[in-house]
């Protein structure tokens, strides 16, 4: 197989995978001829925990190995980083109390997390998880994987989506589409078997909650409305139980474990185990052994349900709002689909059944259904799936700041995307060259209550008296739910340059720099590998030479020949510990040359010996 015979048609058809980049767990799936399949790693594990750790030799590892490191080196390990995607340091003050995030106090705009001696942004950390999934897929499919569909919570805002896309790029993946998790799940469920109907997807995951209502019609999945809470998930249940257990433990052991990172992580695991068991059995034990001490509590489902009821209740308000926006009553919903690990909890199922007055679907594994749907969407994009089409919406209204700190809404929530709006701007001062447009997302009236997305600087406006310039600014939300802004001079039709200043995201330059750095890191890795390979070769030839020097063949050489070999040997040994593989290879070659006669002599001796019937060695 030659690497140089690249058929571009084929190259473009490289495999497209579907990725569920979850708060707690991530999965990768692929659409084959029989349908979407989860891709397992080389050890058969289908789930990659969304945990990333910086090892002591400076490498980022993700998945199961990182989850183990969470116990032994918690200060170099991070989980649930999805909660920080597209956020500023001020946004996450509350999170920091509950999660062991070590945020660099110098973070401005984008959050930077400390992992050992390095500071990394959430997209860089997510990229480590994506790289692991990419690798798993490449190994399993025996193909290059450079394109992916990645799922995001439906209620993710523009900055969170952009951060996810950045993570993909940093992992070496072209993100063909960001698809909303509940919509992806509906694709996997095969509910389009029914010709017409309205379905609700209730997606309660590790860190986020989404509800979407869709109309199905002949293979078209049209989202009517979506709602959710990007800070509500199984994590919240874990944190609640953990807090109670820590208090209880403190009174029993007379020690405060909450400052002991390893202890907290181990207790957290015990709490999660108990939570998961209670979905299947009516009572269980919360058992925890640590540093020779033992703690145990009986926990039954009734108590558990009383504790978590307020959290479950918080999911119902978005459901009611979503029904209202979709202009449907619960009775008009034909089917309800459950997605996300937290929907295994019986109380959650009961609450959903009560609200929608019908028994929800739970046939598919709630952990896998989103990744499977992402793979179907990958199939749609690569043209392999032709009978399905997803029409999704933007979850949040988009507007611009106007006089008095008021937001003027230009694209309303639940508009089918791609969606656009055009607004004309002018100048306020004679000769004004720039106009700054502040774009926000949210449902409230005032700027301070909405989420700042970015400021767009319209530059190089031709100098004119105030109010004369006419600049049409077009806001376009693309099929990924990401905002694009273009501007043109309404009089001349000339494209106007726009500089984007994201409020909480990485700039294009920053992403480029990170990619460059990772390529440089990659080059560094490559150089190291080449040095290591050269040294292995040097070891071999030095050992062979020394062996030959102990043989009769060595004595057959002339004195100058022997000196040549000795000097070439010294040259190689001197280069051996250097960091340039080319120097090592050069000296290797020199020794090879110098030992040419010696090797021939050895061969001759061997032949002579063989003829004499004695064994040489």
């Amino acid at each position, binding site marked *: 197989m030659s690497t140089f015979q690249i058929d571009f048609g084929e190259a473009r058809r490289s495999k497209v995978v579907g990725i569920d980049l979850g708060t707690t767990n991530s999965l990768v799936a692929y659409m084959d001829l029989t349908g979407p399949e989860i891709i397992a790693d080389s050890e058969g594990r289908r789930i990659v925990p969304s945990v990333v750790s910086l090892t002591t030799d400076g490498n980022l590892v993700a998945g199961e190995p990182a989850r183990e490191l969470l116990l032994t080196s918690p200060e170099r390990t991070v989980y649930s980083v999805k909660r920080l995607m597209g956020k500023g340091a001020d946004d996450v003050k509350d999170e920091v109390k509950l999660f062991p995030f070590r945020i660099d106090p110098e973070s401005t705009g984008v959050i930077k997390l400390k992992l050992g001696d390095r500071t990394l942004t959430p997209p860089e950390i997510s990229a480590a998880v994506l790289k692991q999934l990419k690798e798993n897929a490449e190994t399993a499919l025996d193909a290059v994987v450079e394109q992916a569909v990645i799922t995001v919570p439906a209620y993710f805002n523009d900055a969170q989506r952009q951060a996810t896309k950045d993570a993909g790029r940093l992992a070496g993946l072209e993100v063909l589409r960001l698809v909303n998790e509940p919509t992806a799940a509906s694709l996997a469920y095969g509910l389009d078997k029914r010709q017409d109907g309205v379905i609700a997807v209730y997606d309660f995951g590790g860190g986020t909650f989404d509800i979407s209502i869709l109309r199905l019609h002949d293979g078209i999945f049209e989202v009517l409305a979506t709602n959710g809470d*990007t800070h509500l998930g199984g994590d919240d249940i874990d944190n609640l139980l953990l807090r109670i257990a820590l208090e209880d433990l403190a009174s029993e052991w007379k020690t405060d474990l909450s400052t002991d990172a390893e202890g907290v992580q181990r207790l957290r695991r015990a709490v999660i185990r108990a939570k998961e068991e209670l979905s299947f059995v009516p009572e269980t034990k919360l058992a925890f052994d640590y540093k020779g001490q033992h703690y145990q509590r009986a926990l039954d489902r009734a108590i558990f349900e009383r504790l978590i009821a307020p959290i479950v209740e918080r999911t119902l308000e978005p459901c009611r709002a979503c029904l209202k926006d979709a202009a449907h009553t619960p009775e008009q919903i034909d089917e309800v689909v459950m997605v996300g690990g937290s929907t295994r909890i019986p109380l959650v199922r009961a609450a959903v059944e009560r609200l929608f007055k019908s028994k929800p679907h739970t046939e598919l594994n709630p952990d896998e259904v989103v990744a499977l749907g992402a793979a179907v969407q990958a199939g749609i*994009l690569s043209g392999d799936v032709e009978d399905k*089409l997803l029409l999704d919406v933007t979850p*949040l209204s988009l507007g611009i700041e106007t006089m008095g700190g008021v937001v003027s809404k230009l694209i309303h929530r639940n508009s089918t995307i791609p969606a656009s709006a055009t607004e004309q701007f002018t100048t306020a001062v004679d000769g004004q060259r720039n106009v700054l447009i502040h774009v926000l997302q949210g449902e409230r009236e005032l700027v301070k209550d909405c989420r700042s997305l970015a400021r767009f600087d319209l530059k190089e406006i031709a100098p004119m008296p105030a109010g004369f310039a006419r600049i049409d600014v077009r806001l376009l939300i693309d099929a990924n739910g990401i905002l694009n802004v273009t501007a043109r001079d309404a009089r001349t039709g000339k494209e106007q340059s726009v500089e984007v200043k994201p409020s909480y995201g990485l700039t294009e330059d920053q992403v480029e720099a990170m990619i460059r750095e990772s390529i440089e890191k990659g080059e560094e890795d490559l150089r190291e590998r080449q040095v290591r390979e050269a040294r292995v070769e040097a070891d071999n030839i030095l050992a062979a030479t020394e062996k030959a020097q102990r043989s009769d063949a060595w004595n057959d050489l002339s004195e100058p020949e022997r000196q040549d070999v000795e000097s070439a040997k010294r040259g190689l040994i001197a280069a051996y510990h250097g960091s340039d593989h080319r120097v090592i290879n050069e000296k290797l070659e020199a020794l090879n040359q110098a030992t040419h006669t010696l090797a021939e002599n050895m061969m001759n001796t061997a032949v002579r010996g063989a003829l004499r019937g004695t064994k040489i060695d």
Partner: protein
Amino acid sequence: MPPLPRDYYGFFGFDRKLAIDSAALQKRFYELSRQWHPDRFGRKSAEEQEMALEATSILNDGYRTLKDPVKRAEYLLTQDGFPIAEQRGKDVPPELLEEVFELNMMLEEVKSGDESARPQLEQSRQHFLGLREGVDRELLREFQRHDESVEASPTSKQALQEIRGLLNRRRYIENLIRDVERALNPVTPSRPAPG
């Protein structure tokens, strides 16, 4: 490829009429989505993808406009030289003057904490909802009149003047309903800013 029609009626291939069969509109929307959605262009060139994005944004914006009778009428009127935005005055329609005066007094009372005005306020909410329904019925009649006159002569702008008047009246009533509803259920910011 021919340039994309930017006009919503043109894009959907519909006659410029004010009465539109919503089932036919939805069917056409799905057909055009299958043709133009960016997901259908995953393997195509960057130019074609750009075109698909452009086409689908016109399609979606158009569907949103055409499926709502009021937005649809506002769109058609604006295109036909009867822009709504400039007419959006604060002037009270004369026939509503008295009612609006009374309503404002009630709103003041409720705002100052006088709960006794509540039942009356609820009554006027019902009243204005009724008025809006009346306007909607009149609008549909005028839509039909407009469509018939267009059929007779495509350049006819008959009825547009009336329709504009009705739309402005409707908008005014809409704002009153909003004010009443706000007074009845003061906006409690139930949820924080997203994100």
